[in-house]
């Protein structure tokens, strides 16, 4: 289960605040995954006291609303990434960035498909730069794209371009994964699916033996 409480002293009308919170949730908590199980209890409550003395925000299109939205997104993303980083049994955070999609929503869908893949997660735990599993998860995300525009990188290492697998330094790619695992750091997976303006991110973690151990012992 993930729970969250967000507070701000900004002054904002009720309908705008509710819209802003849903947008931020979609860009953060709804883009994380640890094990693919959606809880019965997931909740984020966001409270705005309005005592900062700032002017009241009553339009999503106003400059002030955009400033507050960006900050709200950042706070929720920071917390959401911490949840994924702390996934049960995880040795590292996986950050998937998708660009070139037709919309933010499409990009987000692809990113989460990759972050959710048990095979990608297990490959990361195995320190295996398995571009095939990443490509597979991009493919079944439910978003059409031209295969010949697919590009996949692991950190700075390009694994696939123009839909074609590339020769790459397997030892260096594996070392990127080892380093992240040893330091509980971040593995970066970058995917491009075209030339659209839509981009999105999702966060997950690797899948280790400890995940099964923890949940075999945590019973209803």
């Amino acid at each position: 289960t993930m729970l969250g409480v967000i507070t701000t002293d900004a002054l904002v009308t009720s309908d705008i605040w509710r819209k802003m919170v849903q947008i931020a949730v979609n860009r953060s908590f709804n883009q994380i995954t640890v094990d693919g199980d959606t809880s019965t209890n997931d909740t984020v409550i966001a409270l705005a006291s309005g005592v900062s003395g700032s002017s009241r925000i009553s339009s999503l299109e106003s400059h002030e609303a955009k400033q507050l939205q960006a900050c709200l997104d950042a706070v929720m993303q920071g917390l959401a990434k911490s949840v994924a980083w702390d996934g049960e049994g995880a040795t590292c955070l996986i950050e998937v960035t998708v660009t070139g999609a037709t919309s933010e929503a499409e990009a987000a869908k692809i990113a989460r498909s990759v972050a959710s893949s048990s095979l990608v997660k297990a490959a990361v735990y195995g320190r295996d730069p398995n571009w095939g599993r990443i490509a597979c998860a991009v493919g079944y995300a439910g978003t059409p794209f031209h295969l010949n525009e697919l590009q996949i990188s692991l950190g700075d290492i390009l694994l696939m371009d123009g839909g074609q697998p590339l020769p790459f330094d397997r030892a260096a790619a594996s070392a990127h994964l080892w380093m992240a695992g040893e330091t509980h750091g971040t593995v970066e997976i970058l995917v491009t699916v075209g030339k659209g303006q839509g981009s999105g991110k999702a966060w997950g973690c690797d899948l280790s033996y400890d995940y099964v151990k923890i949940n075999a012992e945590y019973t209803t």
Partner: protein
Amino acid sequence: ASSSVEESLKYVPAAPILLPEGPWTQIPGGVTAANGFKAAGMYGGLRAKGEKPDLALVTCDVDAIAAGAFTRNVVAAAPVIYCKHTLDKSQTARAVLINAGQANAATGDAGYQDVIECASAVAKLLQLRLEEVLIESTGVIGQRIKKDALLNSLPRLVSLLSSNVEGADSAAVAITTTDLVRKTVAVETEVGGRQVRIGGMAKGSGMIHPNMA
């Protein structure tokens, strides 16, 4: 109170800071960083094992504009159903009570009644209306809240409320379950020429694939 806070922090270290870069400055504090908020966390005897804090309260000094995002799982926990109903009726809230230990999910009508009783007790202690109190629960699914332990702990929990960083940290610890770190962050930024603060806390480690609306 100070020793209680130190005691709670020893259980769960702070999470690494994973805040995106932008025109904001990270500041100390989590849910209490923004003006008008207080928080507390304490052990109330709800957990099956150990004495890690398991009860948190966040309050606002004024009527706060309230928003919520909730799981779309059809088998929603009693606190989720309660909060959705409450936010349908009310645009503001003054308090959020959170317990760890029992999720109060798949607990039927009795579980829903437990939520009402817990929210009512908080409302009475803080002299609020029932619809100004929101509830979140986490823990073992299928178990009702240890209500007596929770209700007995509320007066002390209220007495621990503080607007400082320690209040926010102890609340962040109290909402954890299998988490290895506490997740809390706060930033300050400029909105329309005025300094505005946003803070927050979260928990989560397993059963994580949110789909909230």
